[in-house]
């Protein structure tokens, strides 16, 4: 599965591998050191009291003549075990507090949330000392103290994670099905938050180790005759000027073990999380990507022979070519899995490894985004160009906004980063842009959270975010799906107005062919990772030639669809990108198949109106009815 692949990918990175090995070593040491070296560590050698480094005692001896090297090794178990215990306690307490809102219902939940918010505000160390005093000195007291001191942070994390999952419809569906709260927590919520929680606990364990060493060092933690690294440090402190090694060794051990936890957690978090805007691992198919043809000034985006592939190997986008000119609105239609979104993501440089983007040419405003020329220009410049001149509007504005931040702040963030505006300037611009996309009462709305916006308003805010810079191209992936017609019309009209006033080009991706027909100048129809038809939007209703385009048009219900028969559907299902058939990919669903269809995939040919089909339908204008009845 993809998840396992990502774990493996984490271990393949240098940091991930290094931290992984280190962590393993530390854990093995904790497991075996006491078994192997307990005797050496407690052997009292009255001949050598408080001695420095020697060949017999590498790190010297303590006041009873015990070997410090072995004591540091053996202390690893106590140190790490107690740290893990305290972490576990913190996570557990955090889980209880963090999931309380789910279990207790709204009112009691709000109370715990408020409590956690207050507790989080206290410095952890202060809390730990406070609890240490309450629970008394000793290992048990220290575990309780440090564990509880860490609880608020984990509670906060759990709350955020739970809130993200609890909003999802499958939790609502379970509630409607009558599933109890506890079962919902156990079966639906915990499995979905376990991964980030474990990762964060690992990161946290490093800090806990340090904190524990601190308490023991102060004499509040582990008590003699037991010992951990913190106590070893404390004992050797008096002699630090005489025998520095004895005091430093346990300290170094703490740091190494702490780093092992911390780095490993961070590496995993980075590998599994979704870092935004990381340039894809780019590679060109043809080494020479110098734009050979005379440079087209009016071209905003040139895409030639674009391919996107994933390990498997599957290639969901296979050789897509098109050009978008200044101020042009180009629509891309096609069903789910046809590669529309991947095409857009590739253009936006948002395909992440292990995904691979290849193209004969991919250039934006004349600057190559792929290949040698792009490598020469720095990634920072490229990102800057994309950050200011390129805007992306996603399908689901709810997931593209951070639910915990105010809309205005989120709009302002990008502008502060890319345009170097001050906080206030950026905020003023955000309000101005919200007004430009006709969000009512923009000033007040900017201070609201995403969930307080209706779907249409969120989508407008998303477009507003794209307009924070001065984009030359807006790529909108399903911007009006899930909006009703009137709002849809307003969003589309907004895109059209932006195009007119600022000469912005728009790449509009939609599965809804009527939307595309309404606003676009040109329409690209995609099927199975290829463009199968490229035609002027005005020709769509009557002049479509590819059987798939025509079937798509007939499948849209409208106000004249006969009610007494089933809706026209396209028989069969979309092809699986991992197994494209030979020949035309639409072959199995097409009713106009001719012999050549199974032999060879048709090329996209033509000038103003390009079609990829061996048996294109009706050049002569057909009545709508004949397109309908052309269906089975």
């Amino acid at each position: 599965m993809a998840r396992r692949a990502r774990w493996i990918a984490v271990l393949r990175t240098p940091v991930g591998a290094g931290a992984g090995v280190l962590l393993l070593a530390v854990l093995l040491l904790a497991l075996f050191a006491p078994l192997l070296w307990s005797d050496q560590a407690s052997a009292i050698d009255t001949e050598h009291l408080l001695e420095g480094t020697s060949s017999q005692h590498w790190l010297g001896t303590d006041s009873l003549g015990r070997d410090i090297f072995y004591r540091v090794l053996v202390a690893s178990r106590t140190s790490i075990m107690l740290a893990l215990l305290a972490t576990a306690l913190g996570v557990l307490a955090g889980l209880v507090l963090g999931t309380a809102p789910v279990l207790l219902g709204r009112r009691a939940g709000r109370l715990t949330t408020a409590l956690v918010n207050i507790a989080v505000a206290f410095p952890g160390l202060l809390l730990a000392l406070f609890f240490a005093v309450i629970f008394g000195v000793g290992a048990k007291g220290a575990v309780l103290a440090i564990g509880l001191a860490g609880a608020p942070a984990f509670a906060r994390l759990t709350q955020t994670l739970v809130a993200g999952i609890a909003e999802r419809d499958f939790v609502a569906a379970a509630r409607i099905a009558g599933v109890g709260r506890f079962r919902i927590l156990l079966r639906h919520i915990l499995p979905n938050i376990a991964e980030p929680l474990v990762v964060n606990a690992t990161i946290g364990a490093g800090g806990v180790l340090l904190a524990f060493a601190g308490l023991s060092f102060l004499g509040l933690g582990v008590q003699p005759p037991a010992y951990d690294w913190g106590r070893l440090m404390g004992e050797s402190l008096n002699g630090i000027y005489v025998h520095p090694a004895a005091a430093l060794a346990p300290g170094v051990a703490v740091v190494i073990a702490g780093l092992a936890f911390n780095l490993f957690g961070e590496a995993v978090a980075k590998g599994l999380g979704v870092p935004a805007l990381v340039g894809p691992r780019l590679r060109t198919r043809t080494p020479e990507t110098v734009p050979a043809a005379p440079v087209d000034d009016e071209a905003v985006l040139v895409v030639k022979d674009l391919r996107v592939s994933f390990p498997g190997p599957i290639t969901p986008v296979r050789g897509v070519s098109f050009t978008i000119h200044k101020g042009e609105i180009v629509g891309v239609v096609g069903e789910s899995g046809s590669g529309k979104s991947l095409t857009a993501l590739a253009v936006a440089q948002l395909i992440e490894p292990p995904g691979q983007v290849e193209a004969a040419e991919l250039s934006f405003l004349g600057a190559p985004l792929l290949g040698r020329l792009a490598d020469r220009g720095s990634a920072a410049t490229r990102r800057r160009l994309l950050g200011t001149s390129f805007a992306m509007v996603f399908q689901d504005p709810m997931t593209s906004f951070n639910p915990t931040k105010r809309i205005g702040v989120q709009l302002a963030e990008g502008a502060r980063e890319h345009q170097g505006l001050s906080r206030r300037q950026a905020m003023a611009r955000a309000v101005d842009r919200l007004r430009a996309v006709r969000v009512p009462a923009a000033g007040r709305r900017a201070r609201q959270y995403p969930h307080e916006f209706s779907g249409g308003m969120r989508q407008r805010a998303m477009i507003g975010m794209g307009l924070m810079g001065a984009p030359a191209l807006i790529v909108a992936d399903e911007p009006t799906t899930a909006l009703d017609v009137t709002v849809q019309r307003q969003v589309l009209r907004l895109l059209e107005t932006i195009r007119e006033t600022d000469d912005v080009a728009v790449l509009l991706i939609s599965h809804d062919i009527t939307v595309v027909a309404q606003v676009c100048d040109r329409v690209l129809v995609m099927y199975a990772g290829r463009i199968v038809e490229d035609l002027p939007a005005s020709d769509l209703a009557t002049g479509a030639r590819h059987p798939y385009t025509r079937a798509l048009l007939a499948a849209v219900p409208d106000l004249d669809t006969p009610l007494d028969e089933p809706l026209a559907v396209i028989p069969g299902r979309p092809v699986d990108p991992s197994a494209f058939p030979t020949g035309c990919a639409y072959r199995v669903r097409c009713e106009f198949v001719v012999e050549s269809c199974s032999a060879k995939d048709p090329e996209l040919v033509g000038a103003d109106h390009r079609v990829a089909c061996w048996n294109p339908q009706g050049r002569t204008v057909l009545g709508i009815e004949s397109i309908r009845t052309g269906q089975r």
Partner: protein
Amino acid sequence: MSELRFDQVTVRYGAGRRALTAVDGVDLTVPSGQVVGLVGESGSGKSTLARAAVGLAELSSGQILLDGVPLRHRTGGRRPLQMVFQDPYSSLDPRMTIGDSIAEAVPRSGPPRREEVTRLLELVGLDADRAQAYPGALSGGQRQRVAIARALAGQPDVVIADEITSALDVSIQGTVLNLVRSLQRELRLSMLFISHNLAVVRYVSDYIAVMYLGRIVEFGPAADVLGDPQHPYTKELLAAAPRRGATSLLDPVAPRLSDPAAQAVAERAVQVVAEAEPADPHHPPAGCRFHPRCPIGPLVLSDREHCLTIDPTTDADRRRHRAACHHVAGALQPVTTGSVSKEDSL
């Protein structure tokens, strides 16, 4: 077969300055074995109404009755109302097999779970051996079928479908709509079918209710509402809906009229509609809530100032289609739900 009735249902979110009345005194009946289609713009309260019915949103006032008995939402036991959600990608737990997701919704007192899952999967046109698959391995249309199967697993009397096809491709949308229609007829389900797409609603519904800013502004048999809309908002929705062969719907233009006064009014009407600010549910307009964007309202015709102050919902029952407009075209003739058979409405 059961009748679902919303009786003066009001749902409020938040408190104080941020309070918002998402659903405001809605009366709506889903007659037994019939489909009521609910249309309206985003933020008008359609989903809130649905969520209130299944207990995901708290009522501020009013009640929801099933066969005349107020609904109670208990855990365990059979839930007479089930809902299918818009987004099949978030409505199925990614870490649970689809078989488990469906089984979870089968009531404890119900039939043996394994057989029931098989039966339901087949009912919605999926292979029973897909039960072990995870949602990630299914296409959007297949997931939506699973979601429908899960809703049916609860043996509901009423199914609420909230935008169930808007996240799907047109080719799949057709199959899901065909499935919904045949299941509804076969099982004689009562259904509240919510969609922003009038063409889709028209295809499945016996009745159509139009919602605007938390209120139902028109309700009637589907064919009547579409054929003879009363409320100007319904007319606007109809004008915006796709029609076969129409290319650009973006900018309606005023007709050329010989009378300059009438021409001015027509142009003004077009302008009012085009410049309409999206309604702000935090501050609903006084009087008729539609007046700021009404092409036959006070902003266009100066003699209609009463629209600014007098709420047309209070005496809506007197008008054809219970239209919430002082200036409906039709005669004053109340409709009664349930008295119109399906054949009449088509």
